[in-house]
């Protein structure tokens, strides 16, 4: 408004009196005065729309965006592993007999001894988790540590420092968001059913766990991280996977815990287990 009005005034007018300009335009096109209240009202309306947008983003859209990003990053990492397998991963024990045995995951008569990787540094990506129950294309990267800024918000799934690594005797304990931020990896955690496979891919291969049970606990129940979950005496012998997230959704009142037991390991040379997004196979 001031630009066009001012220019026309300058070209046509000999009168330098600028007070004239608004009045002439006022006659040609009636115009409301800009009031402080009016601008304030418009700003408040705009703020309300932005808040509503944020709610929609928080509840739904942001998760979609982050989940798509998670899958893309996980696929890129899986392809990178497949193209350049780590030097330390010749199949450690008897690859030829086990290749036929592990083709049938239900009855592994000669299971391959899993490769145990070293614990990652805080914020270091070390694995990818696949959970077909969460979606056939579900793939989220896993990082060391459970801090929000370095792992949970940015990588996806975090590994509790001090707990065991995939395939190791003891408890491989991880955490992830149920809603928001890292794509809400564990949004559908209460949909897990007994027998559901949960596969962790690392540079060494694929570790398959079988889901067993859910539990709801208080946030202080650190014994879910014990080598034998919920056993404060830390017994030994089993290989467990413990996933923790918040419950109910969008709150911090409780924690939902999912326990799984180790089933089998496939070295990278043998390719991914059936049903796992086979970026590696292509």
């Amino acid at each position, binding site marked *: *408004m001031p*630009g066009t009005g001012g220019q026309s005034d300058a070209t046509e007018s000999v009168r330098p009196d600028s007070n004239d300009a608004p009045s002439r335009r006022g006659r040609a096109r009636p*115009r*409301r005065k*800009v009031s402080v209240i*009016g*601008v304030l009202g*418009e*700003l408040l309306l705009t703020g309300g729309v*932005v808040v509503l*947008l*944020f709610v929609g*983003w*928080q509840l739904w*859209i*942001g998760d979609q*965006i982050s989940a798509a990003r998670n899958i893309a990053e996980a696929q890129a990492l899986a392809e990178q592993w497949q193209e350049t397998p780590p030097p330390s991963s010749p199949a450690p024990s008897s690859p030829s007999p086990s290749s036929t045995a592990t083709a049938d995951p239900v009855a592994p008569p000669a299971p391959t001894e899993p490769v145990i990787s070293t614990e990652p540094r805080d914020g270091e990506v070390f694995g990818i988790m696949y959970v077909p129950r969460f979606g056939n294309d579900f793939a989220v990267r896993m990082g060391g540590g*459970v801090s*929000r*800024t370095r792992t*949970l*918000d940015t990588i996806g799934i*975090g590994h*509790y420092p001090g707990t065991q690594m995939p395939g190791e005797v003891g408890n491989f304990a991880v*955490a*992830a*968001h*149920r*809603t*928001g*931020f890292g794509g809400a990896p*564990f949004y559908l955690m209460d949909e897990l059913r007994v027998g559901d496979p949960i596969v962790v891919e690392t540079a060494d291969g694929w570790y398959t766990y079988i889901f067993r049970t859910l539990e709801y*606990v208080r*946030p*202080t*129940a*650190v014994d*879910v*991280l014990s080598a034998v979950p919920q056993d404060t005496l830390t017994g030994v012998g089993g290989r467990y996977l413990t996933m*923790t*997230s*918040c419950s109910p959704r*969008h709150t*911090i009142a409780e*924690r939902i815990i999912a326990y799984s037991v180790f089933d089998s390991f496939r070295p990278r040379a043998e390719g991914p287990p059936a049903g796992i997004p086979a970026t590696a196979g292509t």
Partner: protein
Amino acid sequence: MYAALWRVLPGPWWLRTLILLILAAAIVYALFFYVFPVVAVWITPEEVTVQ
């Protein structure tokens, strides 16, 4: 405020509407991909770990 914005925009009404729609889409995109992810960390405390 918005009335002034409408007057500043050039062209016929449909062109102004088009410009405003594109502008709104750009603002929403910036909010969704840059502003909200940063703000959310401060607004919603979500703890997923046991401790």
